């Protein structure tokens, strides 16, 4: 059984690109209570932006749909972020996670999952074609005993 988080936030929003900035800023503001460094906050914002942008660009390519975002704090300063959509889904997740793989044409580079992987400690992608995608990312924020 999974432990209960000591704190969490949950947000639902429509897949409009203007919400990308809102989503990453909301998670950064929530994570501030974990006393992260600016670098750690930058990593978290980047990973959230990648996952949310994927839901906006790929999950709902020709329509607007619901995206849900949850950020939870677990023991030992562990931050978990879950981004969920109910869009088109991914047929082959392993292939989608390969660097440079993209179905997005010239406006995308196929590096989103690679960046999420390198900026976070763990990345899990679950998806079903026609049903949607759930991206779960974890990042441990270093504990600092003395002030910075």
């Amino acid at each position, binding site marked *: 059984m999974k432990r209960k988080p000591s704190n969490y936030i949950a947000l639902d929003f429509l897949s409009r690109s*203007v919400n*990308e900035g809102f989503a990453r800023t909301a998670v950064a503001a929530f994570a501030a209570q974990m006393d992260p460094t600016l670098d750690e906050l*930058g990593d978290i914002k*980047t990973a959230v932006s990648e996952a949310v942008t994927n839901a906006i*660009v790929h999950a709902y390519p020709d329509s607007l749909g619901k995206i849900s975002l949850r950020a939870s704090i677990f023991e030992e300063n562990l931050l978990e972020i879950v981004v969920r959509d109910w869009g088109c889904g991914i047929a082959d997740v392993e292939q989608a996670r390969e660097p440079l793989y993209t179905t997005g044409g010239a*406006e995308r580079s196929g590096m*989103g999952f690679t960046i999420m992987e390198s*900026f976070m400690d763990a990345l899990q992608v679950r998806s079903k074609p026609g049903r949607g995608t759930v991206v779960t990312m974890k990042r441990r924020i270093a504990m600092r005993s003395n002030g910075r």
Partner: protein
Amino acid sequence: MEFGITTKERSMTITLRGELDHHAARGTMQEIERAVEAALPLQLVLDFSGVTFMDSSGIAVVLRAQRRMQALGGAAELQGTPAQAKKVFEAAGIHRLISIR
């Protein structure tokens, strides 16, 4: 995203200010292309010092600008790149394709 454009001889500097994400990417690409088409420079410097956030959407913007410059027989480079954007470029290996300072 805000833009500042200065051209000196065949060298153009475009200063970007703001957050370069998917929401801003298309407008940024269009702004860069419009400026390059108008002046046909041989060197394009993208000044990133005012970019307060960038994700993978910025990679496509930069690579497209570089391809456009190469088609003109010129080159593109980045200057003033903040740590957050630099980390994104490095994670994606883009620093091997274009000069990032």
